[in-house]
């Protein structure tokens, strides 16, 4: 069996990234789209950390991953506020039924 190395982590993150893309482009529910985005961000973070462990990125990769997590938290809060507003206005959160910017 091959020793666990950089490529293993990269392939794993590619799989998670693709699953996230699938969630973003195919699900109707806006909250599931958000979950897909979180999966994508997690996949990117795995890449950062893997390169800082096996590559020459050292602690800079950790810093980038921390900022990704910070921005993901801000994004989740804002996006859920928007989703709640959409639900108040349209009584649905299905992204294919929301086709107006205002009432």
């Amino acid at each position: 069996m091959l020793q666990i190395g950089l490529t293993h982590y990269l392939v794993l993150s590619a799989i998670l990234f693709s699953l996230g893309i699938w969630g973003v482009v195919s699900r109707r529910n806006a909250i599931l789209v958000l979950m897909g985005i979180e999966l994508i961000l997690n996949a990117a973070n795995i890449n950062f950390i893997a390169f800082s462990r096996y590559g020459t990125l050292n602690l800079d990769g950790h810093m980038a991953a921390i900022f990704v997590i910070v921005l993901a938290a801000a994004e989740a809060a804002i996006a859920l506020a928007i989703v709640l507003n959409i639900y108040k206005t349209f009584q649905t959160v299905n992204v294919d039924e929301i086709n107006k910017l205002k009432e």
Partner: protein
Amino acid sequence: MNLIDILFYFFATISVVSASIVVFSKNIIYSAFSLLFTFFAVAGLYVLLNADFLAITQLLIYVGGILVLMLFGVMLTHKVISVDIKSGTLKILPAALITSMIAGTLIGIFTVTDWKIAPAQTADPIPTAKGIGEMFMTTWLLPFEVASVILLIALIGAAILARREKQAK
């Protein structure tokens, strides 16, 4: 196969399987809860990659913050009484095409490229928290401050957006 390899495959399996449940499950509650397992597995991978501080941060912010927000979002935007909690998919064929193309391209690039790999670390992993703290206060000071301002703006913006009353006509 040593312990590290077994742990890697363990966490990788958990993360891929639970991420599949997140995006393929018809029930959005199942999706939200399997997202929990994905985050835990990714935190385990961080530990395997000697990123102890990142693993704790992942648990605190993703599991403790973002996931709870998601669950609140699910509960506030569905009529829980009417059990209409199913969620469909749309445009399966183009979505599958795009996703498989992206996955194939990425995995191909990742496996074919000859990555520049640093010499293997033989020493015991050192805790990263001290180094991260020092870098926050020296080379990464400006991004650190900007991130704090962004979090403040996001806090205020989210509160204003979510609390806005509809004007009576």
